[in-house]
């Protein structure tokens, strides 16, 4: 459950930016004949609602409802006592707190005149809430494609928040001195910096000994760090998520390998949306936010059906490549170039 700083900074996410997103959504809703747009939110699927109103639940769940005209509002299972907190962290007209929020949401829609409710990611909408809403008379339709198109290209506010998240993750990973004895010390250094810098969330994973296992795991207990190891920081900042990974090679004679790998990585990123540059790498993955999951897999070595990497989309790229027989794990956020511009990393990889 989320325990970082959840706050709405009007300087970083201006009301005008949220209003512009809402206005674009309402135009699309009008064209699709929807009376309302519904975005379900919990702390693992917060991104659709937060895109339109900034709301991020630290736990529990709720729905954001956007009528064809006017501001979005929230119907949530969180208690009435935190309604003030929700109002302070979100741009919404009102907050309705109730246990059976599906039925309450349906009632609110009916009171506003009814009509078809478009649900972003309807197939994954929790069955119990869908059932409660339908039971209360709501007509639900799939608005996944509508929503995905709306938020494909990052607007200036999302880019700025992504850049801030990337800067936090970069500085946090740079806190690893290389002298740490075990994963506990390295992970604590990264997480402490990220949270003190105002991260909304920080997940740190590690591959403690790349010679034995290249997978980045959530470590329980304290594991000794090997001759080469990788640490990945997944950082959320005011609703925008990025990942950065850093590989450290202890042998001074080989300490330059991560830099060499970073050059190849940056070259492959620059050619996106063409992914041919990753072909020689051991593994690669591109993630980004389409609907509600902050970092959804979009393309990668293991993905049979990739999504389009639209111009202007904010993504996180991860790759593992071997340099002189040493596996190097890298990750950094990038912007897919718009209007013929090449893709570019938001921050350089840490090495």
């Amino acid at each position, binding site marked *: 459950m989320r325990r970082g*700083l959840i*706050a709405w900074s009007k300087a970083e996410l201006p009301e005008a930016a949220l209003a512009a997103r809402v206005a674009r959504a309402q135009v699309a809703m009008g064209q699709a004949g929807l009376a309302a747009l519904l975005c379900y939110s919990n702390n*693992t699927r917060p991104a659709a609602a937060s895109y339109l109103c900034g709301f991020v639940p630290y736990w529990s769940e709720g729905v954001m409802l956007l009528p064809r005209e006017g501001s979005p509002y929230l119907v949530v299972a969180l208690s009435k006592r935190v309604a003030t907190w929700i109002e302070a962290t979100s741009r919404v007209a009102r907050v309705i707190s109730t246990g059976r929020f599906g039925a309450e949401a349906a009632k609110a829609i009916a009171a506003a005149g009814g009509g078809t409710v478009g649900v972003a990611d309807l197939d994954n909408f929790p069955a119990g809430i869908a059932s409660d809403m339908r039971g209360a008379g709501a007509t639900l339709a799939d608005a996944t494609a509508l929503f995905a198109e709306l938020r494909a290209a990052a607007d200036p506010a999302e880019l700025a928040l992504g850049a801030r998240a990337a800067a936090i993750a970069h500085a946090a990973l740079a806190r690893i001195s290389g002298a740490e004895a075990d994963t*506990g010390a390295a*992970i604590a250094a990264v997480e402490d910096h990220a949270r003190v810098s105002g991260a909304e969330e920080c997940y740190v994973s590690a591959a403690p000994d790349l010679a034995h296992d290249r997978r980045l795991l959530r470590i329980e207990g304290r594991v000794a760090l090997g001759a080469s190891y990788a640490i990945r920081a997944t950082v959320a900042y005011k609703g925008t998520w990025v990942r950065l990974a850093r590989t450290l090679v202890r042998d001074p004679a080989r300490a330059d390998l991560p830099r060499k790998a970073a050059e190849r990585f940056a070259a492959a990123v620059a050619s996106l949306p063409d992914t041919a540059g990753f072909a020689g790498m051991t593994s690669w993955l591109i993630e980004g936010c389409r609907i509600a999951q902050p970092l959804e897999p979009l393309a990668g070595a293991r*993905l049979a059906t990739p999504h389009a990497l639209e111009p202007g989309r904010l993504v996180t790229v991860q790759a593992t490549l071997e340099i002189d027989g040493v596996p190097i794990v890298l990750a950094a956020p990038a912007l897919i170039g718009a209007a013929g511009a090449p893709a570019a990393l938001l921050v350089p990889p840490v090495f």
Partner: protein
Amino acid sequence: MLRDERRRRLADAMSEARIDALVVYGNAWQGDYLRYASDFGILEGSGIAIVTADGRAELFLDSATEIERAEGETSGLALNLAPDLAHAVAKHLARLGNRRIAAAPQRFLPSYLADPGRGFALEDGTALFDRLLMHKVAAEHDALRRAAAIADEAYLVFREAAQPGRRQYELTAAVEAFLRRKGCPDNFMILGSGGKDVLGMTPPSDRLVAAGDLVTTELTPAIEGYYAQICRTLVVGRANDAQRRAHALYLEALEAGIAAVRPGATAADVARAENDVFRKHGFGDYVTDQYTRVRGHGLGLFADSKPHILEDVHTNLVPGMAIVVHPNTYHPEVGYMVLGDSVLVTETGAEVLTRTPRELFETGV
């Protein structure tokens, strides 16, 4: 091994209920059912495990990052990266034909799977699963004891961090860094600071801790996925008489609640014991849902498990259950105050797991 014991208990429960397959959903908020069935502590996206009566389990995850983690952190499972989770699971279930399939927690299942047009019917297996989650075995108690011990240590870090001039989120950062340094991968915590203006606890804000503030927190670290919780209140500076009187009320209520924990009692009995103390002292209005949510709750693979400790929850307490008893609520003279300890239900009463003194601590003095 705990993982194997859980799978055996699950298989036994399915066999007893004559269920051929169980569909188990999870995400990082409601991850307990999935962790129990698959031993995977999900962090991002959603996951579904399909457990069949022969004990085999298959895990579907929609995050590519998570599937890599599952490959390294679990064993004895077939793993599937399924970005289109609902459709991938539906395809798999369709192959099970007309066998008896249940789902848990059914309410959270993707709506696509619950559609009657899918060609399979999913019964509600949530109650079956809830019994397994609530009635814990010795290895689970051991994990909870270790989680409680680290909660005590983390509260000490919190006390030291809660100094005037620090922002709330810096307190959280200090606790989280401590836990990661100790190798504890997860924690749930909310907090509050201030006076009568503070109605409850939330995630940290950028509010500065100030002299005279009551600083509340519930810390809930997890060991092997099992969460134990401690709730304490401190004062920045010297506690005043009103704060001391208020704390004495919460202490009396906590002690009454813990004294009510025993086999045969219900969650309602524990809640009533706590609330009666408030009513006796003329603060009965402050045990309603206008000022408080629950008077405690279950502990385990979810930080807010069943049973909820409320006067209308009549779940029987049985040996092996773990709960936190916390008469947390608003006090009209001083603001929101918390005090709570994790306990195990034993054959004779309660074993208190958290050991931090039940004091109104003073810091920055």
